[in-house]
């Protein structure tokens, strides 16, 4: 009996742990005055439209460090295809004078930029944010 319990315990330890659910979260600097942002404002922000917080415009940073993250950004945040997003950005920048979101291909650069500007807003995997006290999550955008 004791041997059986030991085997069961061993199996429980050896069996692969169920992967934790992944989440994509909207993040800002820990110093940011931004506390909450609804989904429409998020779309406006990443389409280049000016979104003001206490009179200051937020600065969108697009995270392009992960292709999957890119797909989630298009499907969940701006809710359009890549060509359409490119067209909208082009139209907004050229016709309306909006700002093109700054793109970062490396997470470290993105985090640095995010920490440097309290009005910067970006998105990333929740697991990447968990151990960084200088970055704050303000909204869950997508969960697996």
């Amino acid at each position, binding site marked *: 009996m004791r041997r059986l319990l030991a085997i069961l315990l061993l199996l429980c330890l050896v069996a692969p742990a169920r992967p934790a659910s992944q989440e994509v979260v909207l993040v800002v600097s820990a110093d940011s005055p931004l506390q909450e942002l609804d*989904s429409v404002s998020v779309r406006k922000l990443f389409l280049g439209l000016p979104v003001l917080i206490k009179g200051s415009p937020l600065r969108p940073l697009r995270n392009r460090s992960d292709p999957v993250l890119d797909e989630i950004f*298009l499907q969940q945040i701006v809710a359009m*295809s890549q060509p359409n997003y490119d067209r909208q950005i082009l139209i907004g920048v050229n016709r309306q004078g909006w700002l093109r979101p700054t793109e970062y291909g490396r997470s470290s650069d993105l985090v640095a930029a995010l920490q440097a500007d309290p009005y910067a807003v970006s998105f990333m995997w929740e697991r990447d944010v968990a151990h960084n006290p200088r970055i704050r999550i303000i909204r*869950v*955008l997508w969960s697996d």
Partner: protein
Amino acid sequence: MERLVSSLSVRLISVVLVILAALVPPLYLGVSAIVRDGYAERFVNSLRAYSRLVADELEAIDGPDFERRALAVLDSAVLSGQVVFAEVRDDTHTLRSTIATPVYAPPRDDFHFGDQGDQIYFITHRVNRSDHPVFVRLGFDEVPTLERTAVAQRRVLIAMAAFVASSIAVAAWLSWVIARPMVRLQRAAQRVAGGDTHTQLDVGSSIREVQELNYHLEHMRRELVGANERLSLEIREREVSEQKRLDLERRLLHRERIATIGTLAGGVAHEFNNIMTPVLLYSQLALEDVPAGGELADYLKRVIAAAHRARSLVMRILTFSREMDLQQPTVFLLRAPVEEALALLREIVPANIEIVFSAPLEAMPVLGDASLVHQVVINLGTNAYEAMRDAGGRLAVTLSVADDPPDSHVEPGRYHLLEVSDTGHGMEPAVLSHIFEPFFTTREVGEGTGLGLSVVHGIVTSMGGAITVRSRPGYGTTFAVYLPAASAAQRHEPAAAASA
């Protein structure tokens, strides 16, 4: 010829087919991909926007009436036509649209058109609520987009097929346009090669290279025609020259033969004259010594008459051989002795022979002996009369002016031409070559001496002229006598001319 057409066409079409075979499949695949991606992009774009809208609408719903209003939103989404699956769930329970088609929903969402192969695009949005988050999941039907893509790809395929067909047709037409003038050019070249060098090469093509080829071939043809004509002309000239040379040789031989015969005959005539002189002298002396009216006197008279005929014959032979003592040459008008001779001929020829005389009004002075011209006309007229004696005919005598004599052995200058033509039986070429030879005759034995034309030849030659004859058996004969015209000085100084 056909081989050229088919070869060019087949080659051109083959090249086009090879190019199309290399280009059309990737082109079709590329266009199909663009079409497919375009439809997919539009589908994904619209469903993302729509699902986001639904999620935002659900997020705006709050309060105890959430389930009922959320169900209304889900049903509304299904009724829009595109959505075939719609549900809202949280950790405890699920709210699903009752009018949606019951389909299997995989646990994972789609991120691309056609993911998971179930022909439904699933998308899930997180809806933040005040108490706890919920998740709205929508499934969009991919079949209409797949059908539109298939229709568009079929249209692309049809367009490609039309493009291939039109390309082959254009290639065939182009090969025909190129080959047709070349075939015409080839046919024309074959005609030229076959000897038809006078057909102009004109293919009427608008292709510059073909036009230039046509131009050069036409230039070659013209050069060939020119060379042929020059060659033909040269051959004709050589033939004429050869004929003239042969004619001159023949005339030279003839003249030499006549001259030889004349010399021989002249020598014989001299000797004969010397022999006849004592015969005639002693016969006359003997006649004076014999009684008149006797038989002996009669015999002597016959001897004397025969001797006179013999001397006459000798004189004619000497005339032919030009050793006769000519009278002093004088300037006379040619018309006068001719008319006198014709008057005499009119007396002796029968009525079935018509004598016609024509002469220009101008004076035709000739230096020589008028009596000899008279004899020439008599001899030629007599011959003509003999040729027409049986059937009758027309004896024509004409005078005219000739600038050059036909015989190169006489001096060039102005000549008067005396032509005597008859419509008698004519002469064969074999006879013509001997007619000026002495004692040559076609008459029966005893009917002629064969000296008439020899004497004419001797007279004309002694006057510095020339004589030719044309004859055609069955049609008649024409003698042309060229006598040198007297110069102005000879006419005004007849004495000086006579002494010269």
